């Protein structure tokens, strides 16, 4: 078993990994940039190593600095989390060469599946359906333009190394092609260090449904059912749930089967996700392989809640060389789980990322509600990293009860000092299309775009009253409240009693 694990990440996922290690008795080593010196993940780990300046390129994305930290701290394993270097084959290879267990698939699998082009080819040969498209060998603007012409409009220009909607541009009209290629390539180089692009036909009004797979080093491959992730803004997932309201049992059977087939074809090991697009509804629906995510997903808690397993723990067990803790027959989907991602962003002003101090931050405690977060009251949300600050996962017996719990949690989750997308999340969860389970990936950028507008309501009088009370310099309750103060303050009651 792994003895000491370096967590090559920050924020909520670093904390999630540290907690799983603690349960297994594995020592943890955190790494941090100068901006994260006082971050919660640093305090939570058994030890912590500084790895450089705030800019991710010089810290969390620096392979030499992270490997130096692993060597210096005597770590025998490394968990990459998601984002940063999680799907970087050179990083996994460097770990393998340094004798450090990389908690994830082998580097050659990362290389093959990390190239969207390579992954598509592999899936085609494995008999998994893919969206029509092509990748020019010649990556010049002219050749990419011709590829768009051949695939036909509307089309999507995507970074081969991409994910999370970065390095991806939609082209509806011919005159948009040149800008789309430039922007996609620029973002791809900035985010992934690789500007290779490919072109795909746009599937109109698709749903995004992905299947969690898990493979060990002993030939066992299982799936842990699906996650519905169609609530997206510009290809960034916002709300995820399991089961998907779009799947019939027959479709679920086909898709999970295809996902296991895909993982086998890839020679996969550890936790992975096969993303599919679904076109159409009911048993007539068709599904296409979109990409494989060769890492733990942001939305993994949704699967944990409905299957009752600990995916991070299983990752550590499998990375240690042990067999998967569960056979397929032991895995079931029970109840319903929905996750909402809280982002530091202002939906009413173009979703501008927000940075600043969390003046007040209180997580709700409610039955059936799990919060995975990486921030604390008084902490700073910086401009340097992803603006996601927390995930709220609600579980219930039915989709309705899980939704109701999630709404209750978000209404009881004060975050002050920076704007967040919570008001937008509430509007989506209360929208009739969401409640009917009828959302496609274009909803928030189209019909639902107006949900992001005019989110502020007029300040109600009771809020004004609280603001006025807070003006009192001593922070003592104001005189007007003596009636209820007596009920709340035992010292006052005691004084009255003595007097």
């Amino acid at each position, binding site marked *: 078993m792994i003895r000491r694990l370096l967590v090559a990440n920050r924020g909520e996922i670093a904390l999630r990994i540290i907690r799983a290690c603690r349960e297994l008795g594995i020592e943890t080593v955190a790494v941090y940039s100068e901006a994260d010196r006082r971050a919660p993940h640093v305090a939570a780990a058994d030890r912590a190593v500084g790895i450089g300046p705030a800019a991710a390129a010089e810290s969390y994305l620096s392979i030499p600095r992270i490997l130096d930290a692993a060597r210096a701290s005597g770590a025998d394993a490394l968990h990459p989390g998601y984002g940063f270097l999680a799907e970087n084959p050179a990083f996994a290879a460097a770990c393998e060469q340094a004798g450090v267990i990389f908690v994830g698939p082998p580097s050659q699998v990362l290389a093959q599946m990390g190239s969207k082009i390579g992954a598509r080819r592999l899936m085609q040969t494995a008999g998994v359906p893919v969206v029509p498209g092509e990748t020019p060998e010649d990556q010049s603007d002219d050749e990419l333009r011709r590829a768009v012409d051949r695939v036909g409009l509307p089309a999507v220009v995507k970074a081969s190394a991409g994910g999370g909607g970065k390095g991806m541009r939609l082209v509806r009209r011919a005159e948009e092609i040149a800008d789309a290629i430039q*922007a996609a390539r620029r*973002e791809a180089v900035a985010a992934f260090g690789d500007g290779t692009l490919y072109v795909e036909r746009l599937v109109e009004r698709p749903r995004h449904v992905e299947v969690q797979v898990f493979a060990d080093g002993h030939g066992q491959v299982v799936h842990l059912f699906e996650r519905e992730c169609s609530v997206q803004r510009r290809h960034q997932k916002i709300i995820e749930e399991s089961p998907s309201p779009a799947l019939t049992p027959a479709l679920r059977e086909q898709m999970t089967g295809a996902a296991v087939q895909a993982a086998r074809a890839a020679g996969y090991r550890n936790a992975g996700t096969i993303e599919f697009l679904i076109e159409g509804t009911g048993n007539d629906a068709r599904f296409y392989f979109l990409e494989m995510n060769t890492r733990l997903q942001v939305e993994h808690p949704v699967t944990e809640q409905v299957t009752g397993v600990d995916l991070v723990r299983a990752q550590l067990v499998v990375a240690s060389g042990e067999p998967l803790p569960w056979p397929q027959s032991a895995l079931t989907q029970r109840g319903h789980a929905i996750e909402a991602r809280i982002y530091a962003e202002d939906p009413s002003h173009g979703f501008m990322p927000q940075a600043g101090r969390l003046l007040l931050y209180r997580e709700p405690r409610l039955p059936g509600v799990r919060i995975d977060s990486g921030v604390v009251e008084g902490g700073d949300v910086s401009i340097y990293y992803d603006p996601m600050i927390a995930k709220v996962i609600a579980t219930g017996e039915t989709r309705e009860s899980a939704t109701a719990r999630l709404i209750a949690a978000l209404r009881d989750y*004060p975050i002050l*000092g920076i704007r967040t997308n919570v008001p937008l999340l509430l509007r989506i969860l209360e929208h009739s299309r969401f409640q009917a389970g009828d959302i496609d990936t274009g909803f928030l950028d189209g019909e639902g775009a107006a949900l992001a507008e005019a989110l502020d309501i007029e300040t109600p*009088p009771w809020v004004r009253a609280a603001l006025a*009370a807070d003006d009192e310099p001593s922070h003592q309750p104001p005189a007007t409240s003596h009636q209820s103060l007596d009920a*709340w303050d035992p010292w006052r009651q005691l004084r009255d009693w003595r007097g």
Partner: protein
Amino acid sequence: MSSPFSVTRIADGTYRVETDRQSETVYVAGPPANRWAFWNGHVFRDTRAAEAAAAHAARPRTAVVQSLTAPMPATVIKVLVAPGATVKKGDTVIILEAMKMELPIRAPADATVMAVHCREGELVQPDAPLIELT
């Protein structure tokens, strides 16, 4: 100043606001110039600060030169215009990047570029003028 509400501070930044028929929990934080409140999933900025800002914004502009500023700390990844260039309303003049996202800065009206005050690769602070238009 009579108020129908009785307000009790029940924890740091947490107030119970009650009438005979109603009880609400309101969270308040921040200094007077940057005060925030939360109630039932809604966030409120102290309106007095907002009113002051609105009054500031409504002051007549005496200069015809307009500067465009960064909305938040960001890195300049592309400067698309040079002094003397003419731009149309909506044209992207500068592309910033923050939190891994591109933020295009667009011309608010047809104008001529008077000066460019930033370079590609530079980290810029909010409210620092990036470019001047006339």
